[in-house]
């Protein structure tokens, strides 16, 4: 089946497979293309820019990042990004864009407004997300019904400026997300630092949707266990792990990753909405800082941020300590500049080595 | 900020459908102005322009002040616009809306920057005394065509205005009252008039002198200010839908035709008023003789 994808002349050599007579593209067994997946290999693809004709073949359907004129079958690009083919759907993934919520996303957010029955949460998405009072775990018991007393005491759960980790429960018509924290995995965040990097919207670096977004790191240098929460919206929380001793009243969000979303059998501690940090040792603070430095270096280097990359970078930075530290340079722990790049390079090498 | 009520979807669809068949809701041709009526007050420099339902009253007044230090030889000419709730509930007094900025900026450019009024002629004693001329534009009723009507009204008022005659003798300035010497007309170098066109159907169709509703349904507008001698002083298409360059040129051409039309209407109205006043002048002379 013949079809053409017109390309701008100067860039055509860069473009990936464009055999206009390739029969493989419209069958399932296409060989040159990576299988349609949510995460394509971006590095092999070239850029389309707004207003560029992607194809004039009517067999393709237009997806995100494209538009058509009512009069012609041409599909044009509306953003600058990489072309993505999912079966017969053409979409363009922008190089950079704001995060758009999808159901099931694990996000880190900041409460910006408290209303009578819900919170408005900033996810760095086009619209603020809602967190209804009915979608949080109320302290003092399992499956407790929401009462008017809870409404009055809404500020005792989350106030303006509080950080929380939650899951996108649904997305409204206008693109706003509705969140829930009905699991011990979710809830208020404390004992750590907040980082804001670019989120899942674009195709460049930043946090990507992956299998595990929350995990515990056994840190070096006696730092103990540290939790890393990668919100797919690009907000990241790195904090001391306090799950080990699940003491009554010291609940907090710290349960293992294996817990189910609706697993309400667990106890919701009274301390869930506690506003004070626990005591954190100096070593732990160092390692939290190191982890956040690694994430920053990864983002600066334009890498994706996920568990594997963060862990490799962390290991690399621990090893790098011995190499770079001898010069006694000022701020020897700082993972910026050349040192950051070195760590990223090292991490990438480790990732590739692990693949092979 | 109160906003103009948007036309309903059905209203809009009806209007656009009619336009597709080249029919305007008030039965005008696509390039026709509404009924234009220019009248004058008893004093010089008061012009009342009615364009359909839109009604603009402009009054010119003059006083003597010191010039700006950096412009010693230039008089001062200010244009103020008053969009009060009188004209439309969407206007709010005391706050400058976008429309008002847009309007005053277009008037400034078309009348002031294009040197329609020579500000040098308003200078009395260099560096000390100049005429400060002021045009107060009041919108009395608003149904679209604001820019066209305001510009026409201001220019007509300027042409109608008579400034008191003065003489300078050895640094002494004498301003004569209208009884001593007849006031003199202003030195207008050319007569620029604004014409607004609105675009529809992705820039394929344009209308002259859109009513408020047509304006709200349109995709964009272009304002052309020009004088009847064929000089363009301002073309402004600030965003809105895109229009083919050739269509734009065609629009400017159409606007030129309209400018001549409006210029003629203005000339006619001024001539008629002059005639009326001339009669009055005769009677005054007669009366003066009686007194003697």
């Amino acid at each position: 089946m013949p079809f053409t994808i017109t390309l701008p002349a100067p860039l055509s050599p860069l473009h990936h497979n464009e055999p206009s007579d390739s029969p493989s593209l419209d069958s399932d067994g296409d060989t040159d293309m990576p299988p349609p997946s949510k995460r394509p290999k971006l590095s092999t693809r070239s850029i389309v820019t707004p207003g560029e004709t992607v194809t004039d073949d009517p067999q393709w359907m237009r997806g995100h990042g494209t538009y058509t004129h009512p009069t012609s079958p041409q599909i044009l690009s509306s953003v600058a990004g990489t072309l993505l083919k999912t079966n017969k759907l053409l979409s363009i993934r922008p190089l950079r864009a704001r995060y758009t919520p999808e159901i099931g996303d694990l996000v880190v957010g900041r409460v910006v407004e408290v209303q009578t029955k819900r919170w408005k949460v900033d996810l760095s998405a086009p619209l603020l997300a809602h967190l209804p009072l009915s979608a949080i775990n109320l302290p003092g018991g399992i499956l407790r019904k929401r009462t008017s007393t809870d409404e009055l005491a809404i500020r005792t759960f989350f106030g303006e400026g509080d950080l929380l980790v939650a899951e996108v429960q649904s997305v409204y018509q206008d693109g706003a997300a509705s969140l829930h924290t009905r699991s011990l995995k979710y809830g208020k965040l404390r004992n750590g630092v907040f980082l804001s990097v670019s989120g899942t919207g674009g195709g460049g670096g930043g946090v990507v949707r992956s299998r595990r977004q929350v995990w515990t790191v056994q840190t070096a240098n006696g730092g103990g266990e540290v939790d890393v929460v990668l919100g797919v919206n690009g907000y990241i929380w790195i904090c001391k792990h306090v799950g080990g001793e699940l003491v009554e009243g010291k609940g907090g969000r710290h349960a293992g990753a294996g817990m189910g979303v609706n697993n309400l059998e667990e106890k919701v501690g009274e301390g869930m909405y506690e506003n004070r940090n626990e005591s954190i040792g100096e070593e732990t603070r160092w390692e939290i800082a190191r982890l956040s430095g690694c994430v920053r270096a990864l983002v600066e280097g334009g890498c994706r941020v996920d568990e594997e990359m963060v862990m490799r970078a962390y290991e690399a930075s621990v090893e790098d300590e011995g190499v770079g530290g001898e010069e006694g340079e000022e701020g020897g722990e700082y993972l910026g500049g050349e040192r950051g790049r070195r760590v990223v390079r090292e991490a990438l090498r480790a990732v590739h080595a692990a693949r092979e | 900020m109160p906003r103009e009520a948007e036309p309903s979807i059905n209203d809009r669809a009806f209007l656009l459908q009619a336009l597709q068949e080249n029919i305007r809701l008030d039965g005008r041709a696509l390039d026709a102005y509404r009924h234009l009526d220019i009248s004058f007050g008893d004093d010089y420099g008061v012009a009342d322009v009615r364009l359909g339902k839109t009604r603009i009253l402009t009054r010119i007044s003059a006083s003597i002040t010191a010039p700006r230090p950096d412009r010693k030889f230039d008089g001062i000419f200010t244009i103020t616009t008053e969009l009060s709730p009188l004209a439309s509930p969407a206007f709010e007094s005391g706050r400058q809306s976008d429309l008002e900025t847009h309007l005053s900026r277009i008037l400034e450019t078309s009348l002031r920057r294009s040197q329609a009024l020579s500000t040098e002629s308003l200078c009395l004693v260099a560096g000390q005394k100049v005429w400060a001329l002021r045009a107060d534009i009041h919108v009395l009723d608003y149904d679209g065509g604001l820019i066209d009507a305001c510009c026409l009204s201001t220019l007509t008022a300027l042409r109608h205005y008579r400034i008191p005659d003065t003489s300078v003798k050895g640094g002494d300035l004498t301003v004569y009252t209208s009884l001593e010497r007849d006031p003199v007309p202003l030195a207008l170098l050319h007569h620029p008039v604004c014409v607004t066109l609105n675009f529809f159907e992705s820039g394929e169709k344009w209308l002259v002198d859109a009513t408020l509703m047509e304006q709200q349904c349109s995709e964009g507008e272009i304002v052309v200010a020009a004088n009847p001698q064929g000089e363009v002083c301002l073309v402004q298409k600030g965003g809105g839908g895109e229009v083919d360059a050739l269509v734009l040129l065609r629009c400017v051409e159409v606007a030129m035709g309209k400018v001549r039309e409006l210029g003629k209407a203005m000339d006619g109205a001024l001539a008629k008023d002059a005639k009326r006043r001339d009669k009055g002048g005769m009677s005054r002379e007669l009366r003066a003789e009686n007194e003697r």
Partner: protein
Amino acid sequence: MPLDTSTYHLALLRLDGRRWNELRRLHAQISTQASADGSSYLEMGNTKVICTIAGPAEVRGAARREGAERDNAVVTVEIGIAGFSGVDRRRGGGGGGKGRGDKRTTEMQNTIASAFQSTLFTHLYPHSTITISLHILSQDGSLLAACLNAATLALIDAGVPMSDYIVACTSGLTPPKSGTESADPLLDLNGMEEQELPWLTVGTLGAGERVSVLVLESRVQVGRLEGMLAVGVDGCKQVREILDGVVRRQGKRVLESVIS
């Protein structure tokens, strides 16, 4: 300061040595500000503009009532003119530009907002605002054009869908040759030429002849308009190519550095 532009006809070279149809050096970068959703830095000759985009983000505070029932995103533009940007230092206009209220700036804001309101796919972001902040660091003519170009780049960087680039440039008219009526059009005027010659700003959508912005504020014979417009539209085509190159280079860089 009067400027002698009458020598043009001797060598057909302009004051800065360009020919009639040459643009000044157009240099641009995107993704310059890490904290903004999208950003760009653009130089057209000595006119230098930084643009940052915030949003699409939810309407907050006082603006909310106005935009609440909208099904489209609202585009707002803020222009800050640095006090040191012109030849004379301007008071009250420095820094973040709180001291605006200048009608020319307001008009420019409205023009830019209106141009992008109809080009961006605002229907994809209901109830939100897209704020374009322009910071003018240095002005030497073609200010509106530079602002439009910078805003286009920053919006592309922010990943806001649009139907095509809005590109803009200026075109002017040489003084008539003594003795004849002919006057040649010029492309991309600098600040000095702008003060002396009649000129217009034209902004087109993409490389076609679809004009989105057209601003002429000087007196000119109606017959000359066609020539000026044609040169301007042609200049826009060149500008689009340059901007497209900037976006592609940035895209390539991003793709090269990303290893997934």
